[in-house]
C-alpha cells in the first residue's frame, strides 16, 4: 500500500533548512534520497508553534469567538448564522468541527487530520468559501488549531502519524500527460468530472455529500476554484487522501505504480487548464 501523507517528516530537521518564505522542503526518511515538495506553510509556522495546553486552548477559544463563530457556530457544529447562507442547498456547508470528519487532510481517509492540516486550512482557507487567516499570528493560528481539536475528544487519543514523503514528482511531459489521461479513464474520473474535466460527468448532478447536500465535482479546467489548492502538492494530497464526507474517494491504495501514477494524473489535470 502506498499510503502517502506528505507532511512533516521532522519538524526539527526542516526548521533548520534555509528556505524562501512560502515554501517548505521535506526530507525523505533515512536511507532514501531527499525529495522536495513545495508546501504553502512557512518554516516559521513550525518554529513558532506554542505549547498545546489548557491555556493555549482557552486562547484559541477567544480567537475562535472573534473570527470563526459566524460560520462554524458557537459550539463548532457548523451552525453559525452565516452557515445557512453558505451551505443551504449545496455543499460545502461550514464544517461541523465536533463530528471528527475533516475534508482536507494528509492522512488516510477516515483518519483525523494532522495538526498541520488544520493549520494549513486555517491559513489558506477554502477557496470560494472560507477566507484564509494568514494574517493571524502564527502562534494564534496554532492556538486555534488546539481549540478546534478540543471540540472533538478523539483528538486527545490520536497518535501523531509518521509522515510519509511524497514520491519524486514526475516532470510534465507529453508521455506523462498521456499516461495521466489513461489513468483518468481507468479510474473513471470522467464519470464525475466529465470527459473533458469540466465537472459535467454523468454522475455529477447526483453527487451529494454526507449531509445530503448536492456537491458538484470540480471543474478541473478551473484550478482557481480548487478548494484545497491547485499546486501539485495540493492535487497530490487530494487525489491520494480524498475528501472525507464527500464523493471524492482516496486513491492511495489503488494506483499500481503508486506515486508515479498520481503524478501522471496530476500532470494530466494541470494540462487541462493550460
Amino acid at each position: 500500500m502506498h499510503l502517502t501523507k506528505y507532511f512533516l517528516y521532522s519538524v526539527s530537521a526542516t526548521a533548520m533548512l534555509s528556505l524562501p518564505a512560502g515554501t517548505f522542503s521535506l526530507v525523505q526518511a533515512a536511507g532514501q534520497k531527499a525529495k522536495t515538495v513545495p508546501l504553502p506553510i512557512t518554516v516559521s509556522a513550525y518554529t513558532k508553534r506554542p505549547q498545546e495546553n489548557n491555556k493555549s486552548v482557552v486562547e484559541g477559544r477567544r480567537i475562535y469567538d472573534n473570527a470563526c463563530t459566524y460560520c462554524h457556530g458557537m459550539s463548532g457544529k457548523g451552525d453559525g448564522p452565516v452557515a445557512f447562507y453558505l451551505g443551504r442547498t449545496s455543499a460545502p456547508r461550514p464544517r461541523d468541527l465536533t463530528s471528527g470528519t475533516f475534508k482536507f487532510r494528509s492522512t488516510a481517509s477516515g483518519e483525523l487530520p494532522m495538526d498541520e492540516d488544520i493549520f494549513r486550512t486555517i491559513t489558506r482557507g477554502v477557496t470560494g468559501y472560507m477566507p484564509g487567516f494568514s494574517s493571524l499570528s502564527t502562534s494564534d493560528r496554532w492556538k486555534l488549531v488546539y481549540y478546534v481539536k478540543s471540540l472533538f475528544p478523539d483528538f486527545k487519543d490520536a497518535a501523531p502519524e509518521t509522515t510519509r514523503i511524497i514520491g519524486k514528482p514526475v516532470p510534465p511531459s507529453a508521455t506523462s500527460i498521456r499516461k495521466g489521461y489513461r489513468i483518468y479513464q481507468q479510474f473513471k474520473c470522467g464519470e464525475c468530472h466529465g470527459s473533458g474535466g469540466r465537472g459535467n460527468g454523468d454522475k455529477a448532478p447526483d453527487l451529494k455529500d454526507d449531509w445530503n447536500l448536492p456537491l458538484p465535482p470540480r471543474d478541473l479546467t478551473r484550478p482557481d476554484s480548487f478548494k484545497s489548492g491547485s499546486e501539485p502538492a495540493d492535487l497530490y494530497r487530494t487525489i491520494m487522501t480524498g475528501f472525507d464526507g464527500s464523493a471524492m474517494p482516496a486513491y492511495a491504495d489503488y494506483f499500481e505504480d503508486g506515486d508515479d501514477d498520481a503524478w501522471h494524473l496530476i500532470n494530466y489535470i494541470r494540462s487541462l487548464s493550460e
Partner: protein
Amino acid sequence: MEHSNKKQGRESINNNIWRKRLPHGAYALLAIMFFSIFSVVNVKDAEAVPAFARKYVVVCNACHTRQPRLNPYGQRFMENGYQLPGTADGGRREKHLLGDQANGVSLDDVSNYLAVRLRADIQKANYRSQTGAMRELNVDRDAAEIVVPGTINLFFAGTAARDISFFFEAEYDSQDPAESTLAFERSVLMFDNLGGYQLSSVKLGVFDPSSFFSFPTHRQQLNPVKAIAESNEFPPTIARIPLLPLAFASRMFGLTTGPSKLRTSTTAGGDAFTTTEDGFAIMPLEPYLFNAPYQKGISVYGRPFGNSFLYQLGIAQNKTAEAAPKTRWDQYVMLRYDMQGEYSNFQVSGFYYTAGKAAMPTINMNGTLRYAKNAVDWIRYGVGTRWQYKAWDVYGTVIRDKIDAPDFSGLSAMMGGNSSWETKSSGISIEADYLLNDKWMLGARYDSMNAGGLLRGNTAAPDWNRDMAQDASFIALLAKYYPAPNIGLYARYHHNLESSAKLPTAVNTDNDEHPLSNLASLLSLGVDMAF
C-alpha cells in the same frame, strides 16, 4: 443636513430629466423582453464579484444574506475596517510587498479596491390624478418609464495599512450637464482597533451615521425609489413622493433649512423675476438626521465588552437654519446588542440624535413666506431590531422625532401668527425577507408615518398650508431572482394604504390629490448588480 437636503433636490431634478417615456402599453412588452433575456442567461458561476469577494476569494454570501444586505459576518467585516473579523489584516493581506519587510510598503491591486453597482428600472406608477405638480414637472399619470442608469456608482474601499481603511463612493452622472463632475457622496477614513481589538475605532468623513443600526439606511433589498420633486421652493413641488422606509423620513411638514432670501432680477427683455438664494424645503419624506444618507462628521465605535455589545458615538457637522447660518454640531449615540444562536442572529439597537437649531418653521401665506422667530431644535430617537434565522431576515424600526414649538408671535392671525403645529412625529418600518432557495427571495415591507409639523398656517381661513401634514402608509412586495449571486432581477410593487386626501382648496383650483395619497401604486421591474 443642508448638504443632504440640497442634494436631494438635485437628485430629484436629475431624475426628472432623465426618465424616458415609453409609448402607452409598451412597458408590458418591455417587461416580458427583460425577463426573457435574463431567463436564458445561464450563469453558473459568479464570474464578476465585488472587490472584497475578489480579494478574499469567497462567495458573496460570506458577507451578504443577499446583496446588498449584510449578514453578521459582513457587518463585523465592515466594523473591523474591511478586515477579516478577529484579525487586523489590512497591512498585508493579498498585497504586494515593495521593498523589505521593515521599510517597504504593501500595496493592493486596484481591482481589490474597486467595485461597481448598477441599477436599472422599468417603473409603472399609478396615480389617482395628474396634479398641478405633475404637470409642472412633466409627469404623466399613466406612463411607464425606463429609469436610465446614467448615474454610476463606483466604490473604492479597502485598507491602506493595518487598521487604516477607507471607503469612497463616487457618483458620476454622465448625462446631466449640470452635474457632470465626479462627486464623492460618501468618503470615509477609518482608524480601527485603537487601544486594542474592538476597543474603539474612529470613522471620519462623510458617511451614513446609521450604518451600524439594526435597520441601516443603506443596503436595502427595496432600494429607495427617488422622488420627482423640486425642493428649492416652499412648499416643495412634489410630483411623486419617494418610496423608502418611512421611519427614516423627516415626517415634518412646514420646515425649511433656513429663511429664503428672494432676489429680484431682471431679464434682458426687462421682465422681473425672483430667485431663491438659500433655504430649501425639508422634504417630508427625505431620510434625515441619523438616517441621512450622508453626513459629514466623526464617529467612534467599538465593542469593549466582547462581541455582544456595540457602542457608537458621533458628531455631525451641519449648518443651523438661522438667517445667518452657523456651524452646528449634531450629536448622537447608538447602542446595539447582538446575540448569536443556532443558525440565527438577533440584535436590538437604539439611538438618540440631537440637532440644535436644525430647522426653520415656515409658512407660505399666499405666496409670501413667513418664518418663525427662531430656528427649532430637533431630536430624533428610535429603536431597531433584526432577527435572522435560517432563510428569514426580519428587521424593523420605530423612530420618533420632536421639534420645539415654533414661535410666530408678532405675526397677525392672517399672517399665520396663530398657526397650529404638531411638534412630534413617528414612523415605523418593518421588512421581512425570505429566501425560498439560492435563486429566489421574497420580501415584504410595511411603512407607516404619523406626520408632524405644520397642521394649519392660518386658522382663520383656508390657506396654502392647511392639512398639509398627512399621515402615510405603504406596503411593498418584492420578488427577486438571482441568476448569479451578484445579479438580482426583481419585481416590486408598492401599494398606498392611505385613502384619498386633497390639497388645501385655497390654492388648489384643480382639486388636486395630496402627494402622499396621489401615488396609488408603483410596479417596478429592474436589475441590481454589483461587480
